[in-house]
């Protein structure tokens, strides 16, 4: 009896998981044509996103060419974007129509009641063809703890998923391969490790949460405090330190900074640790689009949200941001380093972009270490 109940529960869970991915997206050519027509009348839209000039230039040009709508892309730090949007929203004068960014940002916007439900927003038939997406359908992330069911409200359309390989080494300095997380605790690495500052928002948090889950909070304390890990909030500086060997090990380095040095043949390489959890967490990076309420160009924003999921836009995004697309037909080859690509043969136990993990376990591990660092 118990095993039958378990089986029923498992089937229901599987169905729920599948329908979560599918969401409430239905191809609607007539509606899609209508929205495009209205968007063309609006003529433009304002989008905020990661501060990448090449991404801005490429997206703006391609969107204009495809839909005839001017895309005003404004790249700033996430903090500045959040402050601006919050101020504008409270004053009832929102100028931003859509935002490209991470789920942490999305959940803050959602908690403030500033986002539209993404359910039903993807109507371009091309996006909803079978086989287009790795997960079977466009991935819509949960809005909050309300639920992950198909009819529960959705925060954003996540179009990328990649492996956040966070440990890098200078192979000309590190002669003995690092095969286990405990290797980082060896005395010879004291004062030799740098990390993105975990006390700031950014890529320093994810490794701490992952290592906390895999190795325990005592391990992260021993690593960061005991090994006297140097902290910085400058991604380029961190990558340069490792490439020059000033600090031969780096935690929380991001691909776009690492590749600047790696492409020039400098000694900086990803470290893969086989820990049974995948070696690194999955993330979506900046690869999610969200739509705001009460915007000046709602139709153009919806057209953009659909267009960003197309093969054309995904190739632009993947090339410039080094974050692999969730589309099956996008492969930009060497533009994206191997260490961020999802290995189908590896089971990744941690996904940063699951709300319950992000809010619960992830925060707990990060806060546990923050308590041990100077505040």
């Amino acid at each position: 009896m118990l095993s039958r109940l378990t089986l029923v529960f498992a089937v229901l869970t599987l169905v729920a998981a599948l329908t979560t991915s599918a969401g409430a997206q239905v191809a609607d050519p007539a509606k899609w044509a209508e929205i495009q027509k209205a968007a063309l009348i609006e003529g433009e839209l304002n989008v905020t996103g990661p501060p990448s000039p090449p991404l801005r230039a490429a997206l703006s040009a391609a969107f204009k060419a495809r839909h005839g709508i001017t895309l005003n892309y404004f790249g700033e730090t996430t903090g500045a974007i959040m402050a601006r949007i919050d101020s504008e929203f409270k004053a009832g004068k929102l100028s931003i129509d859509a935002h490209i960014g991470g789920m942490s940002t999305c959940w803050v916007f959602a908690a403030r009641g500033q986002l539209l439900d993404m359910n039903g927003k993807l109507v371009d038939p091309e996006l909803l063809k079978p086989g287009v997406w790795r997960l079977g359908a466009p991935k819509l992330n949960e809005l909050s703890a309300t639920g992950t069911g198909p009819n529960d409200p959705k925060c954003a359309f996540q179009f990328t998923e990649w492996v956040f390989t966070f440990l890098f080494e200078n192979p000309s300095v590190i002669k003995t391969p690092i095969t286990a997380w405990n290797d980082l605790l060896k005395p010879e690495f004291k004062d030799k490790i740098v990390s993105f500052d975990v006390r700031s928002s950014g890529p320093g948090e994810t490794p701490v949460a992952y290592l906390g889950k895999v190795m325990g909070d005592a391990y992260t304390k021993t690593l960061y405090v005991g090994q006297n890990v140097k902290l910085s909030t400058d991604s380029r500086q961190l990558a340069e330190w490792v490439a020059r060997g000033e600090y031969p090990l780096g935690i929380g380095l991001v691909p776009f900074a690492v590749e600047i040095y790696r492409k020039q043949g400098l000694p900086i390489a990803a470290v893969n640790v086989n820990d049974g959890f995948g070696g690194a967490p999955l993330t979506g990076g900046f690869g999610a689009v969200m739509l705001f309420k009460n915007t000046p160009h709602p139709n153009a924003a919806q057209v953009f949200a659909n267009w960003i999921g197309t093969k054309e836009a995904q190739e632009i995004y993947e090339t410039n941001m080094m974050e692999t697309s969730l589309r099956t037909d996008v492969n930009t080859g060497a533009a994206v380093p191997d260490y961020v690509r999802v290995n189908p043969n590896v089971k990744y136990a941690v996904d940063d972009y699951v709300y319950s993990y992000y809010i619960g376990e992830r925060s707990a591990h990060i806060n546990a270490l923050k308590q041990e660092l100077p505040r």
Partner: protein
Amino acid sequence: MAASDEPARPATEHRGWVSTRPFQLFLGLLTLTLVAAATAAPVVLVVIGSLQANLWHAVFIDSAINRAAIAYSFLLALRAPFAAIIGFLIAWLLIRVRIPGSRFIEFALWTTFFVPVLPVTLSWILLLSPTYGLLNQLAKTLPFVTSAPFNIYSVAGILWVQVLSSSIPVMVVVLAPAIRQLDSSFEEVARMCGAKPFTVFRLVTLPILAPAILTGALAGFIKSLETFEVERLLGQPVNIWVYSTRIYDLVSLEPPNFQAAMSLSTFIMFFLMLIAVAYQRISIRFDYATILGRGASSQPLRLGRSRYFISAALFLLVAVSLAFPLFMLAVGSCMKLFGFFTIPSPLSLGHWAEVLNDPLFAKALRNSLIVATGAGIGGVLIYAGIAQIVLRSSLPGRRIIDLLAWLPWSIPGILLGISMLWIILTVPALSAIFYGSLLSLILIIVIAQMPIGVHMIKTSIGQISRELEQSARVCGAGSFTTFVRIVLPLIRPMLVSIFVIVFISALRDISTIIFLASGDSQTLSLLMMQFALSSNLEGAAVIGVITTSIIVAVAFVARHFGLQVFGQR
């Protein structure tokens, strides 16, 4: 402003700038209201934002970093008085002593102040990093040197970069006009009475110029609390926190913790306001009119062979503080990878092509020039008007205006920016005029630079003897005519300096304008920030070279134009 055809009155009735009582009252209240709205309103918002239960406890008692940051900030800000003294000495040598190459050296020091600080800092890291710094590598080849003698990641490193690239040059920029306005006949009289050069300097020159030095030192002290890039790059890795980097950290959180940043700012603000009040009390004791009605003399001192040594020392200073950073900036913009000379084919124009082909570049360049010129011209006129009211009128509330003019520097640019955003969004009339337009950027830059603008122009106006203005009034000129025809031309060197400083600030500013710029009003500095944030330092260096070129050209023209009226002193 009073009408220019105001009938002449006896000079004895004209102690104040404007004398008609009701009009005076109206003008005073109007000026007070406008200055208060522009300066106090954002600050009040910051103070209100900081007033939350337990917030101050969390910010100051619970946070060891915040306490350390405040201590380090004040420690590092102590460079300002020393830089003021050194800057004053250099400016005095360049202007009052016949030194070979003085004009070039002075212009070079102006230029030093204009070079973007990020590539300068990276260049010094390249030289003085304890691991791979070129000078350290060189030093280690010496037989008696076993470890790296220099460490750029230290308090000394931060001070070195700041003093060379900013603190001393800016003092030369702001103090040189005051020295130019000094009638050398004062010194000549002292010498004729038998005083030796040092005695003349100590007993005549220094006291007369004390207000300008004091203002420059205070402005430098306050401003140095806000410097950010150098401290973040050089201090953070070795746990040297300062007030400005803490503010950056707090507003960079997702979501930004503005309340904590505002609490930290409010603490500093109260401290700075105490200094401002003390400064006001001290400065009103000075009587330092040096521009009199009998004409001015400007004969430079003649030194013997020592002038060559002084010149050589100043050329060395220019080489270290300007030539090297400029070289690194220019070379860095043409490198595949900033600072890496050993990779295959290290030079490339790819980053120039990337920046110049960026569709936003032309618009950002145009926007920057409009904002910088608008803020420069508008700022100088507004600051001069306020300074004249504070110093030469008997308007009610002028002392308050004087204090209010310090306020914009009492909070960091990023908090000033967010406060102005809130104000503009909340007031429909302001929103309609300013929001999303270049006008909002001009407005915030004019407000942000008000402290140095008003207070340095005040020191210049204070050097003009009242008898000159009274003579104009006796001859029938009204207050406005006297101000425009007599005062402004006499303080022209200072106006030019302030114009250039505001122009540069507008061209370089990121933190103050970031919240007010829209997709349509992005500037070169914001474009540079985008390149830097995406780890493309070489692209940022390209914009740095372009920005520096514009600034040098503008500074050259402005100085040439501004100094014409005084001849080549």
